[in-house]
C-alpha cells in the first residue's frame, strides 16, 4: 500500500526520531516525532515528497498527557492521503521550531499557535500578533485549559496600537478597510502605494472573532457544535457542519448510512451552486457591472427556495448530526429538483457563454491578481485559486468523502492564474455540480438517515476531515473528549490560506485592481476569524464611545 511505502521511506531516513505511527483508517497517518527533528521531517515531506501543506494546530493536552502538542497537517493529493506530524512539547518550555522557512504557508498558523497557546515558534520570520486584539495583555493565552471560557483578562489596554511595518521608499499608505464598501466583513489591508501601483501590503484582521473553538471545548456538546459550525459562515455553513461531523465520525469510527451520505452530497452541491452564483455577481459588482450582479442573484433564487423546501431554511440547513443527517429528500422532491437543475442550466449557459466573449469584462480581469504555480505551492493556496493556476487539486476527488466516490465529475482547471481564469473555473464548476446532483438523485437508495450510536464516543481519538467548500479545502481536526464534547476542534477555512496569498497577488498591480483581486479569492472572513473573543466589551466600549466615534469621523484622518 502506498502508505506503507511512504512510511518505510520515512523510517529509513529518520529512524530514531519517529516515536510512533498510527494508521487508524485507510487514508490517515498520525506520526509522532521528536521535537528536534520536526523541521527536517517537515522539509522532507513538504519538498522532497511534494506534499501540500494544510494547517498547523496547537493543542493544550496538559490535563491528559502532561504536555502541549503541535500538529502539522499535510496532504498527499495524488495518493488520497492526509497525514499529521505531531510533536509533544514540555509544558515548562513551550517552544517549537518554526517551519516557515520550509513552508511559508505556515506563517499564520504558527502565529495563531503563539497567540492562543503561548507556544513560541522559534525562527518564525514574522512573529507579530495575529488573532488577539491589540490591547490584550501578554501572558494570557485563551486556548489553554486553565483559562475559562468567560474569562475577562485584567489589564486590557485599550490605547495600545498595532505596530505596522514601515512602508517602502517613496510609497504612500492607503488604508483599505476595516470599513470599506466592498468588504462585507471588517479587515484591514494597509496598502503601500506609489502613484497608482501597489508596492506592498500588510494585513491586520481577525476583527470578528467569536470564540467558537473555545466554546466547543467547554460548554457545547457534540450535537450542539453542528448547529454552531454551520453558523461559522453565511455562505458555506453546510460545509463546516459536514466537515466537523465527518471528523468526529472518523475519530470515533462511526459509519453513517449510505442514504445520509447522498443527502449530504446533494446539500453540499446545492451550496456550491448558490455560492458560486453569488460570487459571480459580487465580482461583477466590484468591477462596476451591477446588471450582472442582479441577474446572477435572480438565477440563484430558485436554489434558495429549494433548500428551504428540503431543510426548512434558506441557508442554515441544520443538516448534520453525528452519525447522519436530520432531513430527508423524499421521492416527491426529486422531480422538482430535476426541474430546478434543468432551469438553472438553461439560464446559466447563455450567461456564461456571453460572459466569456465579453471583452469589456476581460479587460478588467485578465492579467490581474495573478497567483502562479509557485505561489500556490508555497502559500498553500487551495480551491478555485489553485485550479485557475493549473494545479489539479479537488478534495472531492483526492480525499473522497460522503458519496463522492460514487459519482463522476470533472475537475475544472485553467492556466492563467488570474481573476479571469478564476471566474471561468467557478462558472464551469456550476455545471459539474449539476451533474453530481443528477447522479446522486439516480443512485440514492432508501435507508435509514442516522446511524445507531449505542455507546459513548471513545475519548482521546484524533479525526481529520477535508471537505471541498466552494472556496477551497475546508479542513477540520477534532480530538474527542470527555463530557460529551471534544477536547480540541480546529477549523481551517480555505480563506485562511488564500488570504495569505493576497499580498503576492496585488503586488505591482494598480489600486483599482485591489478589490477585484481580493474578491477573486472569494474571501469569507467569518470563516477565517473563528477563534478567541471573550467578552472584551468592557475595554472597547470606553474607547469607541458615541462622541469619540463622532469626533473621529469629523477629524481629517487618512
Amino acid at each position, binding site marked *: 500500500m502506498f502508505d506503507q511505502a511512504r512510511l518505510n521511506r520515512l523510517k529509513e531516513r529518520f529512524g530514531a526520531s519517529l516515536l510512533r505511527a498510527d494508521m487508524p483508517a485507510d487514508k490517515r497517518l498520525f506520526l509522532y516525532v521528536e521535537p528536534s527533528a520536526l523541521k527536517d521531517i517537515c522539509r522532507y515531506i513538504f519538498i522532497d515528497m511534494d506534499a501540500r501543506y494544510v494547517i498547523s494546530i496547537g493543542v493544550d493536552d496538559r490535563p491528559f498527557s502532561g504536555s502541549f502538542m503541535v500538529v502539522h497537517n499535510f496532504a498527499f493529493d495524488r495518493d488520497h492521503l492526509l497525514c499529521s506530524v505531531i510533536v509533544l512539547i514540555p509544558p515548562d518550555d513551550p517552544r517549537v521550531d518554526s517551519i516557515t522557512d520550509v513552508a511559508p504557508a505556515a506563517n499564520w498558523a504558527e502565529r495563531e499557535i503563539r497567540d492562543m497557546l503561548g507556544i513560541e515558534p522559534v525562527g518564525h520570520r514574522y512573529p507579530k500578533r495575529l488573532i488577539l486584539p491589540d490591547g490584550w495583555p501578554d501572558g494570557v493565552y485563551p486556548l489553554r485549559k486553565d483559562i475559562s471560557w468567560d474569562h475577562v483578562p485584567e489589564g486590557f489596554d485599550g490605547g495600545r496600537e498595532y505596530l505596522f511595518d514601515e512602508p517602502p521608499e517613496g510609497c504612500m499608505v*492607503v488604508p483599505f478597510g476595516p470599513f470599506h*464598501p466592498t468588504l462585507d466583513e471588517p479587515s484591514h489591508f494597509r496598502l503601500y502605494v506609489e502613484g497608482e501601483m501597489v508596492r506592498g501590503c500588510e494585513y491586520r484582521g481577525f476583527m470578528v472573532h467569536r470564540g467558537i473553538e473555545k466554546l466547543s471545548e467547554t460548554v457545547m456538546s457534540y450535537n450542539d457544535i453542528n448547529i454552531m459550525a454551520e453558523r461559522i459562515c453565511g455562505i458555506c455553513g453546510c460545509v463546516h457542519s459536514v466537515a466537523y461531523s465527518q471528523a468526529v465520525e472518523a475519530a470515533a469510527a462511526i459509519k453513517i448510512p449510505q442514504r445520509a451520505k447522498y443527502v449530504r452530497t446533494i446539500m453540499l452541491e446545492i451550496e456550491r451552486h448558490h455560492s458560486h452564483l453569488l460570487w459571480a455577481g459580487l465580482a461583477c*459588482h466590484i*468591477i*462596476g457591472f451591477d446588471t450582472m450582479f442582479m441577474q446572477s442573484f435572480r438565477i440563484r433564487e430558485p436554489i434558495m427556495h429549494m433548500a428551504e423546501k428540503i431543510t426548512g431554511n434558506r441557508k442554515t440547513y441544520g443538516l448534520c448530526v453525528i452519525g447522519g443527517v436530520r432531513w430527508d429528500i423524499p421521492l416527491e422532491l426529486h422531480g422538482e429538483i430535476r426541474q430546478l437543475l434543468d432551469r438553472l442550466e438553461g439560464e446559466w449557459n447563455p450567461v456564461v457563454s456571453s460572459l466569456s466573449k465579453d471583452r469589456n469584462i476581460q*479587460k478588467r480581469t485578465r492579467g490581474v491578481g495573478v497567483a502562479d504555480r509557485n505561489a500556490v505551492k508555497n502559500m498553500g493556496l487551495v480551491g478555485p485559486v489553485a485550479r485557475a493556476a493549473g494545479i489539479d487539486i479537488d478534495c472531492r476527488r483526492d480525499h473522497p468523502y460522503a458519496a463522492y466516490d460514487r459519482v463522476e465529475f470533472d475537475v475544472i482547471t485553467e492556466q492563467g492564474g488570474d481573476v479571469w481564469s478564476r471566474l471561468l473555473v467557478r462558472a464551469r464548476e456550476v455545471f459539474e455540480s449539476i451533474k453530481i446532483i443528477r447522479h446522486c438523485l439516480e443512485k440514492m437508495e432508501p435507508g435509514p438517515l442516522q446511524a445507531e450510536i449505542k455507546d459513548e464516543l471513545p475519548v482521546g481519538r484524533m479525526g481529520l476531515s477535508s471537505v471541498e467548500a466552494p472556496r477551497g479545502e475546508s479542513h477540520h481536526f477534532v480530538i474527542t473528549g470527555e463530557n460529551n464534547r471534544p477536547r480540541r476542534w480546529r477549523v481551517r477555512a480555505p480563506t485562511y490560506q488564500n488570504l495569505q496569498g493576497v499580498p503576492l497577488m496585488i503586488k505591482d498591480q494598480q489600486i483599482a485592481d485591489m478589490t477585484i483581486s481580493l474578491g477573486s479569492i472569494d474571501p469569507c472572513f467569518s470563516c477565517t476569524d473563528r477563534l478567541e473573543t471573550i467578552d472584551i466589551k468592557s475595554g472597547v466600549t470606553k474607547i469607541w464611545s458615541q462622541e469619540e466615534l463622532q469626533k473621529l469621523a469629523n477629524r*481629517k484622518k487618512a
Partner: protein
Amino acid sequence: MNDSVIITISIGLANIVMALLLAPFCQGVMRKVTAIIQSRKGPPLWQPYYDLLKLLGKEDIESGDSPVMQRAAVYMSLATVLTIACLIPMGLSAPMNSAGDVMLLIYLLTFSGICTLLGGLAAGSTYSLIGISRQMMIMIMLEPLFTVAIIVGAVHAQSFRLDTVLDGSVYMNRGFPWSGVIMLVIMLLSFQAFVERVPFDISEAETELMEGPLIEYSGPKLAVFKYASMVKLIIYSALLIDIFFPWHGGISMPLQWMLFWLKIFCLVLLAALVAATHARYRIDQAVRFFALLLAVGLAAVVLAGFGY
C-alpha cells in the same frame, strides 16, 4: 415694458427653468431604465427629488482640510452649471446669447470640472486625493475632445458666435460632412465620460474609492454637488443635440421645443442602457481610449480646415 421684452425674458427663463426642473427627472429615468434591465422594480421616477430634499435637511459636517475652500467649491460648482445652462439653446434660444462666444462656453465647461477637483482637494482625505488625480487625468483627455468638436463647428461656420456654432455647424460644409461625422462618432463614444457614468465614472467608483472626491461632503453641500452633476447630464445632452442633431427646419414653435426634449430623453435612455450593460474601466485603459479618440479628432480638425 413692451411685450417683446417680456417675451424674451420669459423665453430665456423657460430655458433655464426647464433644465433645472427636469434634471433630477432625467436621473430618475436613468435609474428606472437601469432597474428594468436588472429585472427589478426600481425607485419611483421622482426619487431624485426626494433624495435632494432629504440631503438638504441633513447635518452639514465640515470635516475636510479647508472648509472655506469646500464651501467655495460647492457654490462655484452650482454657479457654473447654472451659467452654462443660460448659454445653451434648449429648444428655445439661449437667454445669455450675447454674453460671450464658444470660448466662454469651453472655459466654463472646464471650470465645472475644476470645481469638483477643488472640492476633492479641499477634503484632503486619501480617497478623495486619489479620486481627483483620476479626475484630472480624465479631464486632460476629455476637455480637448469637446474643444475639438466645437472648433470643427466653428471652422465650418466661420464664426465663434454661440447661436451659429451650436446649430449643427459641423455639417455646414459643401459636400459630405466628413469631419462632422467623425466628430459625431467620437462624441457618442465619449458621451458616457462627459456625464460621469459607467463605464467611465472612474473618479467616483463606489466599490474602489468610496465616492472619491465627494467623500467628505454631507447634507446640503452633497445635495448641491449631486444636483450639479444631474444638470451636467442635461447640459451635455443639449450640447450634443445642438451641435450634431439640430434638425428643426420648418417645424413650428411648441412642437420644435418638445422635439428637442424628446431628443434629450432619447440620449438619456441611451446613456442608461450603456451604463447598465458595461463594467467600469480602469484609469489607464480609459486614458488610452481617449488619447486615441483625441488623435482622430485632431485629424478631423485638419480635414475641417481643408473644407471637408
